[in-house]
């Protein structure tokens, strides 16, 4: 790849990589549906969210191309993710200890 110009960097990913990611997403969907049928009690929600997090990781990294993007995009993503996390944590402190 060339040095920091502002044009696209070439990524010669073929169709194959994305089809694989899609297969992974479909597999995870069937896993989460199957797991929901089993009574895991209190950890059912964490399991469902964990699988959703893996799926979004795949979508963000491959379909949204973050894995191959400039580092600044990862900083952006981290910043917004952290903002949301802080809002959730602070709200839950309020809800739990009210």
């Amino acid at each position: 790849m060339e040095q920091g110009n502002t044009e696209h960097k070439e990524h010669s990913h073929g169709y194959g990589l994305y089809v694989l990611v899609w297969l992974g997403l479909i597999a995870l969907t069937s896993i989460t549906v199957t797991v929901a049928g089993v009574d895991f009690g209190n950890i059912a929600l964490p399991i469902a969210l964990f699988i959703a997090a893996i799926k979004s990781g795949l979508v963000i990294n491959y379909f949204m191309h973050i894995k191959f993007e400039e580092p600044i995009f990862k900083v952006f993503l981290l910043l917004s993710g952290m903002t949301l996390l802080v809002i959730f944590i602070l709200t839950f402190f309020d809800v739990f200890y009210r």
Partner: protein
Amino acid sequence: MSQSDSAAIGHVHRDDIGAKMGMWVFLFTEVLLFGGMFLVYAVYRFQHPELFKLAAFELNTALGTFNTIVLLTSSLTMVLAIVAIQKNKKKLSLFYLASTVGFALVFMAVKYFEWTAKFSHGIYPGSDELLSRQNGEILFFGLYFIMTGLHALHVIIGVIIILFLYVFVKRGKVTHDNYVKLENGGLYWHLVDLIWIFLFPLFYLIH
């Protein structure tokens, strides 16, 4: 590299990274918009765990799963449309864009049947049937309608964006060395998919 060549010939100022950055900033505002709703959902589910479970039984898991697969597949065809244009295969790219719209319409059709089924059972915001129930169930369905409704609105906007992109590709405004519009449209479409990835287990898979 073909891209620096064309930039040298065209002498057109372009900042693709800047364009994508702008798109990402917009996507973060979307994340915060839905994030606020997910927060409301989290608090109310924490307060009414049993009633949320009870209400969720009324949603059709099979239709939800089907729609999840439809939306994931539409995300695939969207990204393949970009790969096709990168390889300068215009017709193939147009085919993938049309497929993406097709899947989006299937998603909306399923949503239509889901919602009308709920309406025919008298379940819609403010209905007598719903208001006669306990608070947790009212909250569940309120959140269900507003969150999947706002998501469906995003699907409709996404379809409009993809139709514009289709025209751009067709008229040669988006080409193998200038496809940042297609990438940004794709980012929007994947965000719609991303939100559904969380909506699906939170509404359809509580057992």
